[in-house]
């Protein structure tokens, strides 16, 4: 049995993966380098991201495959959407690393964290392109397991609590996913995730039923990672406990991995027609609603962002409820915009936590008058929140909302569309709360440290990115193909 190898194509997975080993090796050779590890990691991730760029070009083949078997089926394929997601995962991880760079941690912990982060990113990057159950399951777990450790590594009581919550849920979800995978195998008789086997299986009533069960098990398993309600309970705990950049990693890179995983399955099942995925629509609706409603009363900034993530996850999978050619791109497009806005928000929170102290960044009330106190942070955060709301001047958020609603409206799923509209309203109420605090009376944190230059740079770049993509949203949406 022979496999073809296209190393360039595999590089987005290999670079971080091998990089993780490299970081550990470097640490073994020259211990206690501290920040150097972070810098190395960021460099590796950016290199990985650079290797994706050829796939992003409109001229690139769609999809590009490798690891092909002799019978012509391939285990690894990257289409435009996949390349876009890989790029997002790698860049977002790099940004997270940059955010983590100035934070003081015990020096022996830095290489571990860096390696874990690289591993998780490699998993995220790989699951997007996996085309068979085996590699899909492996890369999905590769993206998940390290995050548990990353959360726990903050080594505070709240962090270990969050990690425990994350751990138990992830384990059970993995078990459910594995069961789903097994059922899939039972129904189709193959580990290929392509549509042909699904189509063949759907002709037989028994295997159809088993396939249905398989799909819902897998959706449930991935739903945990996407923080879809009711698989979401870990999210506020983990976000609240983890260090701020790791929260960002959970909110962004992890979500990219999860959506990538879901899209792989979705592509396979979409040949069956719409009713198969109605469950996704229901989950999306519940997630949006619960996330928004809970965020309305949340007082902690990080937990607020967690609820926001939950509701945004609903928006991300919303288009998938309608099986259409647009759905995949719409979901990916929304995710990319969400990733940008959430990253920027986390960057601001990180910067503030670093300069004013974590206690002055975790309560929403401590953002009072930020627009006056720290105009750059205030404006950036306001713009990020507006993007999450989907209101101008953050046009990019609005375009994302249009994108997400498009397939639903096009598929005439009226109840879902109306729930989405109501949630658009709730979402505005949610983020306006924070925005109002930004406009409100200033609260004095006592310390007036300057921002760390790296944070400053990241926030400034984030602001610039939001502004540029608001003028030309196609720059961002073009990442996931046209």
């Amino acid at each position, binding site marked *: *049995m022979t496999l073809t190898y296209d190393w360039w194509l595999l590089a987005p997975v290999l670079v971080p993966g091998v990089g993780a080993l490299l970081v550990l090796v470097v640490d073994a050779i020259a211990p206690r380098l501290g920040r150097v590890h972070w810098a190395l990691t960021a460099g590796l991730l950016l290199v990985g991201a650079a290797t994706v760029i050829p796939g992003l070009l409109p001229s690139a083949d769609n999809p590009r495959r490798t690891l092909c078997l002799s019978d012509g089926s391939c285990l690894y394929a990257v289409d435009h959407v996949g390349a876009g997601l890989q790029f997002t995962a790698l860049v977002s991880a790099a940004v997270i690393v940059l955010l983590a760079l100035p934070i003081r941690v015990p020096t022996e912990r830095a290489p571990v964290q860096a390696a874990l982060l690289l591993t998780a990113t490699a998993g995220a990057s790989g699951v997007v392109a996996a085309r068979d*159950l*085996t590699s899909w*399951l*492996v890369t999905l*777990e590769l993206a998940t*397991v*390290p995050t*548990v*450790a990353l959360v*726990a590594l903050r*080594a*505070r*009581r*709240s962090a*270990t*609590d*969050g*990690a*425990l*919550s994350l*751990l*138990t849920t*992830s*384990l*059970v979800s*993995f*078990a*459910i996913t*594995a*069961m789903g*995978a*097994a*059922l899939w*195998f*039972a129904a189709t*008789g*193959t*580990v290929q995730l392509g549509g042909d086997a699904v189509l063949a299986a759907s002709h037989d009533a028994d295997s159809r039923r088993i396939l249905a069960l398989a799909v819902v098990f897998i959706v449930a398993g991935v739903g945990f990672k996407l923080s879809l309600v009711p698989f979401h309970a870990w999210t506020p*705990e983990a976000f*609240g*406990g983890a260090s701020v950049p790791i929260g960002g990693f959970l909110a962004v890179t992890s979500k990219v991995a999860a959506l990538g995983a879901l899209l792989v399955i979705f592509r396979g099942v979409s040949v069956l027609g719409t009713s198969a995925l109605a469950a996704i629509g229901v989950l999306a609706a519940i997630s949006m609603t619960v996330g928004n409603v809970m965020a309305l009363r949340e007082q*902690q900034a990080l937990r607020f962002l967690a609820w926001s993530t939950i509701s945004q996850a609903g928006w991300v999978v919303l288009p998938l409820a309608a099986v259409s050619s647009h759905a995949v791109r719409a979901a990916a497009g929304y995710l990319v915009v969400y990733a940008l806005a959430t990253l920027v928000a986390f960057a601001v929170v990180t910067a503030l936590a670093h300069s004013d102290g*974590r*206690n002055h960044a*975790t309560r929403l009330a401590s953002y009072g008058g930020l627009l006056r106190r720290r105009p750059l942070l205030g404006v950036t955060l306001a713009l990020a929140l507006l993007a999450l709301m989907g209101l101008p001047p953050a046009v990019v958020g609005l375009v994302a909302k249009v994108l997400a609603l498009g397939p639903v409206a096009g598929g005439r799923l009226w109840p879902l569309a109306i729930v989405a509209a109501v949630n658009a309203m709730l979402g505005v109420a949610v983020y306006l709360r924070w925005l109002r605090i930004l406009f409100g009376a200033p609260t004095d944190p006592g310390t007036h440290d300057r921002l760390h230059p790296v944070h400053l740079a990241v926030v400034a770049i984030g602001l610039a990115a939001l502004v540029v993509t608001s003028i030309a949203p196609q720059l961002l949406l073009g990442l996931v193909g046209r």
Partner: protein
Amino acid sequence: MIHPVLPMLLVGILFGVGLYGVLARRNAVLVLIGVELMLAAAGLLFVTVGSLTADPLRAGQSMTVFIITIAAAEIAVALAVILAVFRARGNIDVSQRGSDD
């Protein structure tokens, strides 16, 4: 050759027992064991189905191996976390409320 219904039944039982364990136990390690049971059910299903199909890749069997491996890795992380939890608060009760900073 045994009839596939028996292993299938076992898969169901294992998964159910595992799920029950996960939901009913308050000790984190026991929860882990429940998860292991569920994973075992998945693995068993893979093997059973794999033996029924003539797959040149022997996918069923290899998947089982993968699942066992992943499970092992997870257990490693899980035990580390449980250790950390124990250090932080002195028990490993999964029904205890999470706390803020």
